[in-house]
């Protein structure tokens, strides 16, 4: 069992805001969430909703043109206020990150062993022999056969799925307590996606890590995550356990998103689609950002931004008309 709501969260993100271009564009807007010990939190939303910037802001990986404010509480400290030396111990150490396109995150001119070893040097006391042994162990752990030979190879010699395994091996080298995974399977085929997601779950169990999994696929959330947070136009609009949110979406956007995905029983019928498209972040409509697309919108929605309100511990929603949304029922 994971994600008990009563224990202290390992990660506590408070009022995280990230802007670009001297505040002209707000990519992440007042985002708060927690991650429990051993919990897999799914961060879900359509493209441009701010998922990647949120993830990168946690470990201060946004480019210099970006400005991040708020608080990221980690083991009693605020990562956003840490000195660089401290940050280096946390980033890539206690907190590791993997990306959608492993090729761009791996160094193409270094053999895989060297890339794992760099992380082992930075975050462990192992000597040369110890590092070699540990690297082989990590390759086994992520399911890459013939580790001794493959450690000498370069990233381009691996398939897409194997490259993602290499990324995970590098991420695990530092014994992280938290893994940040940004669409780690979006570029992969469905049978390979299935392998990688199940690998992440197995590693979570073995190493009792916590995971934040960014995805645009609600199926991946249903199959993998304990809790979920839905993002729209830079804000979190709903959070809860995956079963709660699927059974009873409280936000109109969450409900529309669930209805947009075909599932058993909808064959050749009209899907509950959402009109229009997500707004560009430099032209977010006033009030609730979703109001021009929302079938439940009322005057209040066009005037005021709905606050994210707690319904119960770990369950929150930002919608003025959630009673109507709940009454309309879950589309799945």
């Amino acid at each position, binding site marked *: 069992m994971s994600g008990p709501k009563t224990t202290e969260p390992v990660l506590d993100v408070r009022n995280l805001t990230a802007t670009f271009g001297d505040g002209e564009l707000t990519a992440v807007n007042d985002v708060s969430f927690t991650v429990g010990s051993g919990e897999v939190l799914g961060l879900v939303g359509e493209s441009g909703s701010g998922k990647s910037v949120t993830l990168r802001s946690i470990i201060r990986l946004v480019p210099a043109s970006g400005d991040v404010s708020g608080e990221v509480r980690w083991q009693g400290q605020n990562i956003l206020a840490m000195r660089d030396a401290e940050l280096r111990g946390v980033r890539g150490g206690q907190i590791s990150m993997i990306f959608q396109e492993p090729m761009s995150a791996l160094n193409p001119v270094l053999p895989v062993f060297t890339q794992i070893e760099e992380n082992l040097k930075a975050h462990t006391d192992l000597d040369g022999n110890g590092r070699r042994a540990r690297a082989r162990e990590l390759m086994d752990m992520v399911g890459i056969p013939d580790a001794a030979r493959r450690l000498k190879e370069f990233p381009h010699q691996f398939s897409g799925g194997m490259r993602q395994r290499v990324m995970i091996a590098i991420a695990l080298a530092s014994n992280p307590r938290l893994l940040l995974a940004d669409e780690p399977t979006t570029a992969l085929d469905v049978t390979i996606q299935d392998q990688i997601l199940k690998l992440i779950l197995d590693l979570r169990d073995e190493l009792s890590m916590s995971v934040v999994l960014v995805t645009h696929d609600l199926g991946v959330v249903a199959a993998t995550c304990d809790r979920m947070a839905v993002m729209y136009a830079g804000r979190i609009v709903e959070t809860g356990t995956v079963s709660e949110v699927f059974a009873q979406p409280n936000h109109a956007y969450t409900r529309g998103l669930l209805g*947009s995905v*075909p*599932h058993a029983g909808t064959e050749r019928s009209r899907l509950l689609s959402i009109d229009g498209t997500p707004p560009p972040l430099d032209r977010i409509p006033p009030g609730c950002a979703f109001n021009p697309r929302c079938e439940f919108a009322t005057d209040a929605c066009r005037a005021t931004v709905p606050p994210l309100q707690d319904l119960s511990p770990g369950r929150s929603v930002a919608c003025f008309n959630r009673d109507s949304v709940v009454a309309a029922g879950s589309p799945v």
Partner: protein
Amino acid sequence: MTQDVLITAEDIGKHFPLPQGVVSRLSGRPAPAVHALNGVSFQLRRGETLGVVGESGCGKSTLARCLVRLHECDEGRILFEDQDISALSGTARRAFNRRVQMIFQDPFGSLNPRMKVRSILSEALSVHKMRPAADIPARIAELLDLVRLNPDAADRYPHEFSGGQRQRIGIARALAVEPEVLVADELVSALDVSVQAQVVNLLLDLQDKLHLTVVFVAHDLRLVRHISHRVAVMYLGKVVEIGPTEDLFSAPRHPYTKALLDAAPELDPTRRSRTVAARGELPSPINLPQGCLFHTRCPHALDRCRTERPALTPRSPDHEAACHLTEFGNPETTT
């Protein structure tokens, strides 16, 4: 069962030779090639939507391109109303080009960025002399209405539209010439989920209204299941299973189809599994496995599977699979 068959693919093959030097000269071997299609056979029936599904590189796009004759097949043949399409020329070829239309995956790349929507549509209309010049403006308005775009869209350029709107323009262009068959390759794959649903709804409406026959090529099983009457599952350039959608999804008769269905994440958090659906990776289409193409990953493989390639054979009404285990997945014999 008599079905009105529009297109028949008979054992078609398509191979792309590799440039020599990329693969170092291999002594004594035949010239290396990517074996994109390796004996694909099926029939497309008038009025149906046939879904074609499989993982990347399995040959879906190559098949789609062969169907509209953007590629010539290297082996086998494709019949359109009993005529071999590779033999069509002159008027007959132009008629084929009009009656079978392809819509591409990339809504950004397939529209000329320097042409307004009006010119894009009127070009399609005039190439096939669909309307007298005087009627073209009215027809353009009608087409935009059909795909639910505003009339003022005619005077804008492709870059002024969102991905979903551009895909509608692509559909309007294909429909301009009043085709009978639409071959849609990953029509909505590049779109966000909420926009995907809009385009899927539009496609279903149009098909009812215009009695279109559709080949819907996609890697997303959920979409294919939603849209298709029948589904063909491809693996390494072969159709390994084909049958009515419900039947195929509820009782898959090929181990690969079963694995694909198990791997696809369903929208139901109560039905989770921690078992990996299929181990291993896709073999290279340059060096195809001997025997059954799936044997390197199949948990049920027998000795025979490593040497003898199974052909598509009937399993239940209208449902075929290519596997030596003819009882695999049979709901009447398995418990």
